[in-house]
């Protein structure tokens, strides 16, 4: 990768020689990737393509022969496209409101807090609230007098997934938008451009890495989500991850499930390649160390602001309404039959669910800092130290994320249930599953924010005599701290709420809150499921509030330093 560098250009020293710390770091990353990403996937592929000791396409062929599975493939792409589009648009609107419109800080906090609700609750919980509202005989349908709305299928799944995943887009885009130097926009305005033109020609192009990032994350999330379609898609709108799950758990067909997930891998990789191509070729540096002090953001025009805020408030109100349904469900004795208030459901959670709560918190507490560290190292090497193998490293770091969770779970069970690496039934396997699956957001964020930071800042440190590790910890890390914290928050939330991979990895020793909620749902304990969800949401909310506070603190520090630069 060519960049303006006074140090490396003339000498052509290999990056390994220049940074002695790189070798042990690379070795550690490659070993852990080999064990927790490559090896399980390899075992899974062997299961897909080896039939009785022979290489064979029989398993894949069987899948492609089925009209239902072909339909599922197309539906998955269509759904993921629709979700990533709608989610990114919504996320951008929210990010724009929070970073560009002068709102009172409590209102910003409030908008941010409400959008985390869908993110920090397991998807099937909001699915139930949506079903009660918009499903057959739903509350909102009755209220608005709508009949014959076919909720089960595409519409319900699309709505639920968009609501669940747009906060990811919001978090990603808010980080990127707030990092764009407002002086650039001001320059456009003072040169006489209309606010709309400045947005089109300055703000939007500069946020491209964030948009690409968001589209990729949402596309992959939707592509891999099995819980939402499980509850909402029904038989008329099959999607691949649910089909893979059904194949494994319903038909006891691990090979068929593996083959289905192989199909799923192709579009995921396609999006990944597209994203590399699209974002990788432009220069988005806006923190260069040479800027003057940052000015405040100017008004963007009343109509545009009103429209943006209108959308935000409508969506926020809808989310609040959905979650008050869940709170209500947790507090009443029997929904719709006996509406008297009771604490009984919460008592159940803190007696029958205490072990699950403790286990989940311990796992999240271990996985989050480890995943954050991994993200910053991988992201840094991938973006700054381009040489042989870094692209492969980045690819393998993302692989578990691109694979549907069900498949990762089954692959882990196959790989780690026998020697040489015996891990089933331990906490390690759960921590590893979460870490290597959900540090992807952190890596993406680190890469995106490094895209915006001119390498000359690091080179200045190096030319003043600091070693590579010192430069990394003293210069690079502080600059990407908001991105890392964002990634850690994402990781923590998923440790608390994700289910698709880990449902196969929980054991009698280590259980999880999400699996308990799903159990309550399948066992018809609706009120208990709601109470579990409320407790889970409060726990995650408390923990993420701390991480958000840290992010804000770190962002402010960077802006301040940029000003002095």
């Amino acid at each position: 990768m060519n960049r303006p560098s006074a140090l490396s250009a003339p000498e052509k020293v290999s990056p390994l020689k220049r940074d002695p710390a790189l070798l042990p770091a690379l070795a550690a990353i490659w070993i852990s990737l080999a064990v927790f990403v490559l090896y399980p996937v390899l075992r899974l592929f062997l299961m897909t393509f080896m039939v009785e000791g022979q290489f064979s396409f029989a398993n894949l062929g069987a899948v492609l022969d089925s009209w239902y599975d072909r339909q599922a493939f197309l539906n998955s792409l269509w759904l993921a496209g629709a979700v990533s589009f709608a989610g990114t648009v919504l996320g951008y609107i929210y990010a724009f409101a929070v970073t560009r419109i002068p709102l009172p800080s409590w209102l910003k906090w409030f908008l941010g807090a409400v959008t985390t609700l869908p993110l920090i609750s397991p998807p099937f919980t909001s699915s139930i609230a949506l079903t009660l509202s918009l499903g057959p005989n739903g509350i909102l349908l009755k209220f608005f007098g709508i009949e014959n709305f076919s909720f089960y299928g595409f519409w319900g799944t699309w709505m639920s997934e968009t609501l669940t995943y747009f906060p990811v887009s919001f978090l990603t885009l808010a980080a990127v938008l707030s990092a764009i130097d407002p002086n650039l926009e001001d320059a456009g305005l003072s040169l006489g451009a209309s606010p709309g033109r400045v947005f089109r020609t300055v703000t939007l192009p500069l946020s491209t890495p964030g948009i690409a990032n968001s589209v990729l994350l949402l596309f992959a999330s939707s592509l891999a989500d099995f819980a939402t379609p499980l509850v909402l898609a029904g038989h008329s709108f099959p999607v691949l991850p649910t089909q893979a799950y059904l194949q494994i758990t319903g038909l006891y067909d691990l090979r068929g499930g593996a083959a289905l997930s192989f199909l799923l891998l192709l579009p995921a990789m396609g999006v990944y390649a597209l994203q590399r191509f699209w974002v990788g070729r432009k220069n988005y540096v806006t923190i260069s160390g040479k800027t003057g002090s940052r000015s405040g953001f100017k008004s963007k025009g009343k109509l545009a602001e009103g429209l943006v805020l209108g959308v935000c408030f409508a969506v926020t109100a809808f989310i609040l309404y959905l979650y008050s349904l869940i709170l209500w469900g947790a507090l009443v004795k029997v929904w719709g039959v006996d509406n008297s208030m009771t604490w009984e459901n919460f008592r159940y959670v803190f007696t029958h669910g205490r072990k699950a709560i403790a286990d989940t918190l311990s796992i999240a507490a271990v996985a989050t800092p480890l995943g954050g560290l991994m993200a910053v190292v991988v992201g840094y090497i991938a973006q700054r130290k381009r040489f042989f193998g870094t692209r492969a490293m980045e690819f393998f770091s993302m692989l578990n994320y691109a694979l549907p969770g069900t498949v990762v779970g089954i692959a882990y069970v196959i790989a780690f249930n026998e020697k040489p690496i015996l891990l089933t039934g331990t906490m390690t396997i759960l921590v590893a599953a979460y870490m290597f699956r959900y540090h992807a957001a952190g890596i993406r964020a680190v890469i995106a924010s490094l895209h915006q930071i001119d390498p000359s800042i690091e080179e200045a440190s190096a030319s003043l005599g600091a070693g590579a590790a010192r430069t990394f910890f003293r210069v690079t890390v502080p600059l990407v701290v908001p991105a890392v914290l964002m990634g850690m928050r994402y990781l923590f939330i998923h440790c608390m709420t994700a289910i698709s991979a880990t449902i196969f990895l929980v054991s009698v020793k280590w259980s999880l809150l999400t699996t308990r909620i799903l159990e309550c749902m399948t066992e018809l304990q609706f009120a208990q499921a709601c109470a579990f969800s409320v407790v889970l949401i409060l726990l995650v909310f408390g923990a993420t509030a701390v991480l958000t506070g840290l992010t804000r603190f770190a962002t402010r520090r960077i802006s301040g330093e940029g000003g002095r630069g």
Partner: protein
Amino acid sequence: MSRLRVVIASLLLVAVMAGGAFASGELNAYTIMPEKYASQVFEAFTAETGIKVNFMRFSSGEALARVVAEKNNPQVDMILGGPADTYEAGIKEGVFEAYRPAGADGIPDKFRSKENFWTGIGIIPLVFLTNTKFLADKGLEAPASWNDLLDPAYKNGLQMADARTSGTATERIYSLVKILGEDEAFAYQKKLHQNIQMYTKSGAGGAMPVAMGQAASGIFYIVDALDIQQQGHPVVISYPKEGVSFGIEATGVLKGARNLENAKKFMDWASSKTFAQLLVDRKINYIPTRGDVEVTNPALDLSKVSLVEVDVTWKGQNRKAFVDRWINEVIK
């Protein structure tokens, strides 16, 4: 640099940590029986034997997928609950250990595995579960025949399980095939499909929508239907006059169990009269396989219900063909 190394070394250390072994005097189990019932069953077992039980609840498909995947290093010693056909599928994978429990003689042969791989502890027939408000609105009686569900009044109102994922759904197909013959059974389901609102992934998944009035009616195992009724929802349970088949809830020991003796003790206990009485006393809605306990819940009195006997081996042999036919003929 050294700091980086230390951090990464600790990262690897955590990553390579392996789990500890299970202590003795314990029993580890997967349960397919709902947690709220299983916790009572295991509590009673611990009270009687002093053996501590660690357990985890899964759907039948997941539990089977897990024990098959864990075959070379079993994490648990036994499975409690779940339909006998799941156990039959597991026998093919070689995951079960044969054991003839002490109380086997009290349980009819048809409720036990021929090779003693599993023992039936309770039976659960299929029932119709219908929302009473829906019936009142439409001026209908509770459905009393499979054909009643074809009434256009139920259009877009039925929720029942998807045959690809749910044992409840395959049980429904077995019932229909035994009553109507195979071709007729699929012709019937094609007609029934006109009234379907959604096929749910889990067997009980449609019961809550029926309870909430989002769906009108559906076909469920009695254990789920009674649960909903006992919670106080406005629902009615009825049986088709043509008959229904029933599932056998089983239990069995896994091959390679680390606490084999304790697992066998559980099998002995689960096949005893004490256990059957426990099901009745705790209102766990299975009908005990042992004939020597009196079922007190009138809802579980099946003397007026026409039950269709379906051989478990036949179920296992036909399952895949029926599911394929269901996908290609009914829902296409």
